């Protein structure tokens, strides 16, 4: 481990010395930040920072199409579907950073490794894929157990690892012949085909990436030569660094006030990323008084939606979200444009309350907010005031994330109101709402509603097993209408991630119009699409 690091830094040093005579061609550097930690192992990566690393250091068989939705071949040059068999032909011009050419064995190794370790995005495949086999060097076949429409979208989360490099770096471990499955090596090094390679990685501090000029797609000259992804910067620190010109793109987690202060400067502009998720105010449908749909609807009518939106407004044009009308964000397959956007309506709220079996005076509604997300305190206090107008007594509680995930595993300890941001993990509606509403998976942070509705379950299952995209869209539109009627959740807004960037940095994938965006959070941070002056 130590020696390895030294070798890497020695190589970096040699590279630095080699470039000294060419000092005129200064290396262009892109500096950005995310919350700690950055997970580099493709079989464990899930978070936003991890996703950024994955889409730069590794490639996948398919990618979301830019601007339109749908999927396009990437490492695969072509694919065919025959019943439950999916056959991919690999490009023949791709090689890993090590120089090894990409083969079907790499795909099989990457898949087996993901499933064997059982972490990361393995759940997208585990129950649905029967087998993966290399037909020949350039062809790989996935066989499913049953029709499963979200499968192709899931492939955007299967990073292809250099199997030869990985296997030579396997240490002793729990996986028999495969030793530790190169976990130690791949948590500190990249072994992909990506447009960037990792040159140094400390999961709590910093990842350094260098441009791979042998990438199989031409990288524009303006793309950064080096990328410094820093972890865990405070808002005040980002602000100071950016105004000194020592930082290029902020994370999306800055408080709106700080984003606003930075956006006011004339050398900064905003990047946005949207259409992949929402902010959900979840009601526990199995705890009185919210087990009565009329009480839930009363609360939904009482919320002051305009104030919610005002709280996330950054500038006149840009906000950290737009009003939502249902479970799926506008633009996603199956989003239902016919549903009305909810507004505050106290008369309707009182009318629903009159039909509710409970007397509000008898119940205290517990409104929780996640301690790590200070903005939610403001939403919680707003709800407190709004709901008290209906006569409900309320209690606002601050819950750290670790405690929240524990409390929601039991109906009785799940707060009446939980607030969470949820994003689709693949460019498919199933990845967003199956885990929220199917009764089989109740009792996680995503499903604090504890919804148990046969019709919803049936629609969610139909959405998975129906292959025809138009039919699927109709199923999800019906599901949206059913959920709005049942009101397990208050759909507050579709989220939009906002980043502050220095004017010197441009990114075609992060422009507000979405014309070149990938419909997957984090994928838009492919540094090869960025331009650094």
């Amino acid at each position: 481990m130590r020696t390895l690091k030294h070798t890497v830094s020695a190589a970096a040093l040699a590279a630095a010395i080699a470039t000294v005579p060419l000092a005129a061609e200064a290396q262009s550097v892109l500096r950005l930040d995310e919350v700690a930690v950055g997970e580099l192992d493709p079989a464990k990566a899930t978070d936003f920072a991890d996703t950024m690393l994955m889409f730069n250091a590794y490639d996948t068989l398919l990618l979301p199409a830019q601007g339109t939705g749908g999927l396009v071949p990437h490492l695969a040059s072509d694919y065919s579907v025959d019943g439950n068999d999916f056959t991919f032909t690999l490009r023949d011009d791709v090689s890993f950073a090590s120089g090894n050419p990409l083969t079907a064995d790499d795909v099989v190794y990457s898949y087996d490794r993901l499933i064997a370790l059982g972490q990361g995005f393995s759940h997208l495949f585990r129950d649905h894929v029967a087998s993966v086999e290399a037909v020949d060097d350039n062809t790989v076949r996935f066989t499913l157990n049953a029709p499963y429409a979200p499968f192709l979208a899931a492939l955007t989360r299967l990073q292809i690892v250099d199997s030869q490099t990985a296997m030579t770096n396997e240490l002793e471990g729990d996986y028999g012949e495969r030793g530790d499955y190169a976990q130690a090596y791949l948590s500190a090094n990249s072994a992909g085909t990506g447009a960037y390679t990792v040159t140094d990685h400390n999961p709590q501090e910093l990842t350094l990436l260098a441009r791979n000029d042998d990438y199989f797609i031409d990288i524009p000259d303006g793309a950064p030569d080096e990328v410094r992804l820093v972890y865990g910067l405070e808002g005040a620190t980002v602000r100071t660094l950016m105004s000194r010109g020592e930082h290029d793109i902020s994370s999306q987690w800055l408080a709106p006030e700080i984003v606003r202060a930075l956006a006011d400067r004339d050398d900064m502009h905003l990047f946005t990323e949207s259409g992949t998720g929402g902010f959900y105010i979840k009601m526990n449908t199995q705890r009185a008084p919210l087990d009565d749909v009329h009480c839930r609807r009363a609360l939904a009518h009482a919320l002051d939606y305009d104030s919610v939106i005002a709280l996330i407004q950054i500038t006149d044009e840009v906000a950290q979200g737009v009003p939502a009308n249902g479970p799926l964000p506008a633009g996603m397959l199956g989003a239902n444009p016919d549903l009305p956007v909810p507004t505050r309506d106290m008369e309707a709220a009182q009318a629903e309350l009159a039909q509710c079996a409970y007397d509000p005076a008898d119940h205290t509604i517990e409104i929780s907010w996640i301690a790590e997300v200070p903005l939610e305190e403001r939403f919680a206090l707003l709800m407190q005031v709004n709901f008290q107008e209906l006569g409900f007594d309320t209690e606002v509680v601050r819950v750290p994330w670790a405690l929240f995930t524990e409390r929601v595993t039991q109906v009785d300890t799940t707060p009446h109101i939980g607030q969470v941001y949820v994003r689709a993990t693949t460019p498919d509606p199933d990845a967003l709402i199956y885990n929220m509403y199917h009764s089989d998976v109740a009792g996680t942070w995503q499903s604090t509603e504890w919804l148990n509705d046969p019709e919803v379950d049936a629609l969610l299952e139909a959405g998975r097993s129906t292959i025809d995209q138009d039919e699927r869209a109709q199923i999800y539109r019906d599901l949206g209408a059913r959920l709005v009627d049942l009101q397990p959740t208050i759909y507050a807004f579709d989220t939009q991630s906002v980043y502050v960037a220095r004017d010197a940095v441009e990114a075609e994938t992060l422009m507000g119009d979405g014309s070149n965006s990938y419909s997957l959070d984090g994928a838009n941070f492919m540094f090869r699409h960025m331009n650094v002056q």
Partner: protein
Amino acid sequence: MVAILRSEGWYKFRRNPLSMVGLGLVTLIVLLAVFAPLVAPYPTHAGAFVDFVNASQPPSATNWFGTDLIGRDILSRIFFGYQVSLVLSVVVLVIAVPIGVGLGLVAGYFGGWIDYLIMRVTDVFLSIPPLVLAMAIMGFLEPTLLNAMMAVAVMWWPWYARLAYNLSRSESHEGYVLAAEVIGAPKWHVLVREVLPNCLPAVFTKITLDVGFVILIASSLSFLGLGVQPPTPDLGSMVAEGAQYLPDMWWMTVFPAVAILIAVLGFNLLGDGLRDALDQGR
């Protein structure tokens, strides 16, 4: 107590203007806390209240100390904040100081295996980070204010134990202590009458500073959901949460911080005065 205050000590206390300033400040703060509902310009702002239209306003004629991110009057919230913060620090210190000083004195004066036992247990308690303790408490106790105070007290007493230990260890070799032992005074008597009073200056100083520390540590506990919960104001959380918005919204941090400073200054001056007065009485 009354007798003491009528004595020479009270006379000396009264003659020192700084002590009287301290007494005045502490009295003022206690009165503000007790009568917060009457003196606060906007008493409703301490409870369930939002006014996002007037959020983050700088100090003005209507809101002397400005408003916070929720649109609440900061001055009003400081008055109410004193209620929780003062009770919290007083209760914590009332529990932690006697335990810590008592154990430290005994360990330092008697030495031997008592010393080893007490001080190594102290080391164990020092080793557990406050956050770990607080999270653990959240696991099996109700997240009430009382439990939060218990948690802080448990992490606080070892500091007093170490302080009293090193002082009594040193004092117990001073001439007057040895003299008292030689003339056959009982050990406990010597400990209480001779050693303890000589530890008091440092202990008193530490206590008055700790009034501020406890207020601040409470804010990290309330971050974990233990103790004071929004919308109830506490001064430590107001300072900690406002700091993110420096320098633009300086009033959110500066005024609550000054409020804590005034409280600590008051207790510090009062503490110095009391100590001098007690010293005189001895």
